[in-house]
């Protein structure tokens, strides 16, 4: 897991996607978006140049993130600190073996 940078209420965290076998596919995307919708903070997920609104499964799916992809999670809002771990847990669920 990358470093956690705190600036104001924005939290950034680099995450390596697991979710075998397809990576960030429909199931984790739906679960992630469901959780994000319950939060007060804005959730943005970046894959290089592409950014997705964490509350939209479609947006997340469009990041095309197979296992091993480095995503940057960006939470902006008052409950960002408590939201981070559960969101990361969804993206890193399952064993990812880079070999």
């Amino acid at each position: 897991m990358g470093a956690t940078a705190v600036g104001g209420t924005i939290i950034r965290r680099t995450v390596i996607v697991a979710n075998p076998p397809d990576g960030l596919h429909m199931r984790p995307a739906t679960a992630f978006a469901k959780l994000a919708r319950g939060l007060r903070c804005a959730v943005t997920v970046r894959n290089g140049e592409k950014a997705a609104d964490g509350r939209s499964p479609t947006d997340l799916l469009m990041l095309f993130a197979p296992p091993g992809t480095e995503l940057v999670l960006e939470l902006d809002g008052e409950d960002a600190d408590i939201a981070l771990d559960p969101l990361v847990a969804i993206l890193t669920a399952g064993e990812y073996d880079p070999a």
Partner: protein
Amino acid sequence: MEIRRGIAVSPGIAIGPALVMDTEGVRIRTTSVPPDQVPAEADRLRVAVAAARVEAERKQRVLAEKFGEEIGSIFEAKGGLYQDEHLIAGIEGLIRANQFSAEYAVSRHIRGVVKRLDAASHMPQAVRLRGDFIDFERGLLALLGGDQRTPLPAVAEPVVVLANDLTPNETAELDTNLVHALATESGGATSHTAILAGALEIPAVVGVGPFLTDVSGADVVIVDGNNGYLILDPDEPTLARYQEARRLERTKSGEHRVTSRNVPAVTRDGVRLTMLGNIEFPGEARHCLDRGAEGVGLYRTEFLYIHKSEDPTEEDHFKAYRAVLEEIGPDKPVVVRTLDLGGDKFANATGRAAQEKNPFLGLRSVRLCLRNLPLFKTQLRAILRASIYGDLRIMFPMIATVMELRQCKSILREVQEDLEESGIPFKPDVPVGTMIEVPSAALVADVLAKQVNFFSIGTNDLVQYTLAADRNNEAVADLYNAADPAVLRLMDLVARAGQAAGIEVNVCGEMSGEPVFAPLLVGLGIRQFSATPRKIPDIKRVVSKLTVPDCERLAAECLRMETASEVTRYLRDYTRRILPEAAD
């Protein structure tokens, strides 16, 4: 705006709202709603989404109970899109911002997503997702339309039909007045779509390659059948240019029709040829007369059978034939071809054997009729009954052996006897002919000629069977060539057998509608052409430049050639010399 290039198979320009055919046959009726209906339209979307979500959850539960959570979760995943508030809000936004109908908004939004996915098609996830989104779109469109899925025939306003490929049964009941043009992703110059467009005299472009994901139902599209373009989402200047071109074209074709209509087809040295029209639907009889055809040389009767839940009754047949005879008039021939179903055409419960492995070499056409006598006799009775309304002639398709022809004729005699016994009027001397479209029939044409009053060479099937190449299969389409010397030799054999027996030999395939082939056909001794009505004025013009001795020399030359491309080049050069504008 996007311009796509395809194969131009039927000339003309059409501009209109798209009717996108997919396998589900869902169509979008209207693109927009009045401003005061926008909230109701958004509600309609929400209700459909909720219903789709419930349905997806139900499926998931059922599957999970039956097969365990693992399988059930596949549906949970699919259902996920219905819970995607952002996705739904995006669609709703289109309704509110543009007053789109709910269906159109769904289609537009998803087409946009699919396009992005196609751009990433090197990623396996993108390919899978594409399927999920297409499912999502279809599911919602189906719910929004209730059960009113509109198959092609029920079109209610003029449209441009876009499809991957049109199947014969989709097109058979098409309301031809409402379809302005056709464009398909696949198909070649001799595909069913091409033939249909030719028959309907509407512009068509085929073989465009994938474009259906870039267009939503009811989008405005342009089909340029002169140059083979399909234009999606045209910009204003393009639209204006094409509107002007279409206007000019209409004026011109009107003039052309009038000038060539009453001019007979006579060669420069005074030999009179007969020009007949090919038709599929009774309404096309009018086209024949408009284009100066001297009758109908091929009346395909398959439309009576296709897309019906039951076989046509004798009355159905009779009415159709009588309508054509009355339109054409008492003194002009109308050649009715008996049922020619099978192969790529769909037969309903007419005693067709189970799925055949090789339908083009299977139980089709006259073979099917000889196995299903009630079906065959029903048609023959109706044809004979209609014979009193004009100069009707009967033609049997796909005859491969002398035996088959004898059987057909003996069944015809039985039907005549039945009618006689019942005191039902018919013409006793209705001419009987056979198609020559199987190489075996061409080879024994001298024997067949003694049994019939006329031959008609069906070049489409003759080429396909001679070269063993399916004309709809792009992989072997280059083999399919009417100019192949093997085909020409068979035609020569048939023409000479006809002359020796003193019977008329007609050519009714696509070949007879191609101006470049006219000198060759005349040289082979063909004096009767039957073509798509639209082609007749062009053929007449070429014919007026020919002399029979020149054509005979040309035909002899072609028969000595070794390859199709040699023949094609030679014919094109010749036509270019005598009538430059007809050569291409």
